[in-house]
């Protein structure tokens, strides 16, 4: 079953044609990885799904429902959370408030959910009272992912979680994502192929605003020619 489908989605930003007809599917319960060089349109794809850079034409289906015409602030309510590329942890708010602001439907965050998050990111338990601006890059990334977890959403869109992180942090992020994957569908944008291939189920490669190819991750790992061609490794 596909949780997300995009059909021929075109997106324009300030007159530039960024997505030139993206067609993709993401399977329920799988971790799909979106690969591709800089400027190939990966982040724009994620933002288009979230409605932050609205699709000019085409169709986006989430659980069979067309969402491309919805307002950006309505889309998360369907059960989609975003971990943006720049992390965007609110620097004036404490970590606790950063999580609170993400809680939807006016509910409080349950103890269970909090335990679940702390279980995934053990260092979080000492951070709750810290302000966003005092966090290190790795801590910010943790908070950004944790913020997307508070609502128990079906689909997580995670944009380059390892960008600029030290190797040890990358490793703990890998473990965390492996844990999160058990309960949610994830679409992950990544440049770090080694990191990505170790946890992904499926892959999609973007080139020039289009999906160039996709399939099971095993096929890509075994196909060095394809790696070289699209990823330059």
């Amino acid at each position, binding site marked *: 079953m596909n949780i997300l489908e995009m059909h021929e989605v075109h997106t324009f930003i300030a007159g530039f044609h960024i997505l030139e007809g993206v067609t993709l599917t993401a399977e329920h319960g799988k971790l799909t990885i979106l690969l591709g060089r800089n400027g190939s349109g990966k982040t724009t794809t994620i933002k288009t799904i979230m409605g*932050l850079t609205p699709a000019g034409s085409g169709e986006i289906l989430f659980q069979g429902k067309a969402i491309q015409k919805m307002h950006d602030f309505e889309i998360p309510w369907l059960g989609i959370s975003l971990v*943006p590329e720049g992390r965007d942890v609110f*620097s004036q*708010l404490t970590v606790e408030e950063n999580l*609170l602001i993400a809680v*939807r439907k006016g509910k409080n965050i349950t103890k269970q959910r909090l335990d679940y998050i702390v279980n995934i990111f053990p260092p979080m338990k000492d951070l709750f009272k810290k302000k966003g601006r005092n966090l290190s890059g790795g801590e910010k990334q943790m908070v950004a992912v944790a913020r997307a977890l508070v609502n128990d959403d079906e689909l997580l869109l995670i944009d380059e979680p390892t960008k600029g992180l030290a190797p040890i942090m990358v490793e703990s992020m890998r473990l965390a994502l492996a844990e999160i994957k058990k309960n949610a569908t994830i679409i992950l944008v990544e440049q770090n192929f080694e990191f990505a291939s170790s946890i992904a189920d499926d892959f999609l490669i973007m080139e020039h605003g289009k999906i160039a190819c996709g399939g099971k991750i095993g096929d890509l790992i075994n196909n060095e020619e394809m790696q070289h061609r699209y990823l330059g490794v």
Partner: protein
Amino acid sequence: MTSQLFVNILLSALSLGVIYFLLSSGFALVFSLLRVSNFSHGSLIMWGAYLGVYLVKALSNFTLGLVVSAVVIGIILALVEFFLFRRLYGGNPLFELLLTFGLIYILDEAVKLIWGAAMITVDKPLFLQGTVMIYGEPFAILRLYIFGLGAFICAALYFLLNKTKLGLIITAGIENKEMVRALGININKVFTFVCWLGGFLAGIAGFVLAFFTGLSPEMGTNQLLNVLVIVVVGGLGSFMGAAIAAIIMGLAEAFLGFYLPELAILSSFIVMFIVLGIKPSGLLGEE
């Protein structure tokens, strides 16, 4: 100077500071979230004064009249946000400033049409007349009332901005609007609400001001300058900075007025030049 006199001046300085705080809080709030310098704030203050006095008389209920008029002033600014500001977001901030500047004309002339251009004196309601003795000196009950009102509004705003989810959203929205939307929050509604709140505060401030200056079509634009100076001294975008600056302005005006009465009218400029000379971004403003 006797200590009695000192306490007396101090108290009137503080109550002046509280009035300044009330006058500038709405402007500071709107600026800090929307980055719109609302030059029509002074005119909204004047509307608050006229409408408040009128409604108190019409409804013959002091508190009800005050609240209803403030709510209406809030709605005016919320409508302005909804229909006018929204078209200009993301462009040159100059145009938002010029737009609010144009609004001054519309609001001021409307007041003249409805209530006439003549100055109207305002009588204090009975329960605010008279004085109490503090430290052996008489002190007007009205000023005590203003202290109470200022403290209440300051506390309410503090609670709203720091202890509620709305406050979190406002703080987060100032920093990163896109991420707030990506969390499923309709930030446009928050914008409109903040404008409503800014107008509400202007309405209350105007009503209080009416007891001191009476009603005149110029009263708003006269205060606009004070408001702008306070907000710049406090640091643009810093709400607490504006509160501190308002108190400093009150102190400066009262004490300068005692020692050098000729210069009292220039006190706010003097404070502004001193502060901007030492810290160009204002007291609590970020570089």
